[in-house]
């Protein structure tokens, strides 16, 4: 079963948006006939690929090659210009942990807020609450405000909430943008890496975007190499990675 089918996908961004954004510029723009040429940046050009059920594929490429944009197009955060994108199954896109942590709220309030942002009802968060707190190892700080936390503690909280919400959704498609382990100290690093590893290898279809070629090599069967929004090469991880390293 094909989980993701991308066919002839194209996307361009308009640059210099801000310069033309003032009210006066808009009004002048309506009356002046000279059509100022827009500068466009191609972020996806004729991109086509398919991902099967349970497959783990890696996407590599330099900064600005269109990796994150491609994931955002698949997850419908960005609108495509043309082409087809078809996804079958519950999809989750992650580009970091802990969207929406509010330093002035307590850990408890933050868990409920972040859970809601990740699409969980208050009841669902309630059911997962103890699990989230336990995994983070911060059970003594549940009613402390997050601004008092060290950066390591914030990392633990963010990771724990995000990953338990992802687990709750039990996604069939997982798009991971430059994330894998939760960071933090060695103990938490290992624990969090194991959790992501279980999730990635748990049967979901996964697209991994990373600059860490070791990570890509370890988990992906197939790799897509993007350059200026175009697929430069795709195929077995071994073949594409060695071409990428020897360019």
């Amino acid at each position, binding site marked *: 079963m094909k989980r993701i089918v991308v066919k002839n996908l194209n996307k361009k961004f308009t640059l210099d948006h801000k310069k033309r954004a*003032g009210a006066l510029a808009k009004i002048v723009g309506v009356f002046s006939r000279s059509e100022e040429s827009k500068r466009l940046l191609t972020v996806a050009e004729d991109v086509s690929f398919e991902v099967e059920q349970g497959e783990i594929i890696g996407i590599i490429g330099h900064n600005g090659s269109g990796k994150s944009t491609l994931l955002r197009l698949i997850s419908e*955060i*960005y609108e495509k210009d043309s082409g087809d994108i078809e996804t079958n199954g519950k999809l989750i*896109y992650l580009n970091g942990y802990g969207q929406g942590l509010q330093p002035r709220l307590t850990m408890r309030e933050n868990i409920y807020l972040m859970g809601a*942002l*990740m699409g969980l009802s*208050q009841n669902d968060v309630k059911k997962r609450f103890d699990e989230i707190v336990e995994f983070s190892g911060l059970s003594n700080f549940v009613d402390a405000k997050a601004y008092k936390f060290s950066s390591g503690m914030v990392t633990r909280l963010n990771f724990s909430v995000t990953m338990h919400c992802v687990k709750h959704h039990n996604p069939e498609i997982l798009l991971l943008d430059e994330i894998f382990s939760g960071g933090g100290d060695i103990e938490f690093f290992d624990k969090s890496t194991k959790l992501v590893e279980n999730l990635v290898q748990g049967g979901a279809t996964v697209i991994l975007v990373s600059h860490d070629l070791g990570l890509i090599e370890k988990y992906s069967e197939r790799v897509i190499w993007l350059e200026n929004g175009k697929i430069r090469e795709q195929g077995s991880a071994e073949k594409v990675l060695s071409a990428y390293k020897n360019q």
Partner: protein
Amino acid sequence: MKIDSVLSLSYSIAKANFKLRNEGSYLGIFWYLLSPLSLFLILLFIRGNISGVEPIEHYPLYLLIGLVMINFFSQLIHSAISVIQNNAGFIKSIKIPLEVFVFSIVLQSIFSHIFEVVLIALFFIYFNMSLIGVLFYLIVFVFFAVFVLGVCLLSATLGLYVSDLGNIWTIASQLLFFLTPTFYVVHPGTHLYLGNLFNPIFYFMTAARDVAIYGTMPAWWMIGVMLAVSILSFCVGAFVFNRYKGRFAELV
């Protein structure tokens, strides 16, 4: 995402922001009341010190209702203009129904409006007026909130395309404050009255005062305009927001 989960998420965000606004402040929720109350006292004081002003029956209530309504509108539009930009982080990283950001600021303002309604009720008690007036006020307020929600959806979209809209609104809202009969009364036949016929807030404010303070039904045509304006505003706002929301993530 279903409508109930959109509303529940909007409620969660509004609740968090409401807590954040009151956190660490001894006066807490009273801040919501201090702003309209201080303006109310100043305007009342000025009026009491100017000779020859036209008498207005139950002026303190007339003024208070005018102030809370125009404040509700002006402050909400101000927040709506930047609400999408302010949530850029989420919008770029989570597939989330973007309406929730607009709904949540409206809900947050409604929470704080509850305190203003309590204040209005206290005034009603103090002036020995029937509290049923406050209930009638709430009916008008529901239509007013729908109207404001529509304008918020529109402003949130425009705010992304017109970068100086916030500055424009700062000036426009001041003009609106003085041109709407918030602290004075307008009479049919005057230029100000004619101008106000194009001002939607005028209809809601007049209707709210009529039913709450003076115990009279507003004219039928006024009720008609009020209903039409609420529905039209909501439909236009929702249409424009929906039409452009797919591009928001690129613009923030």
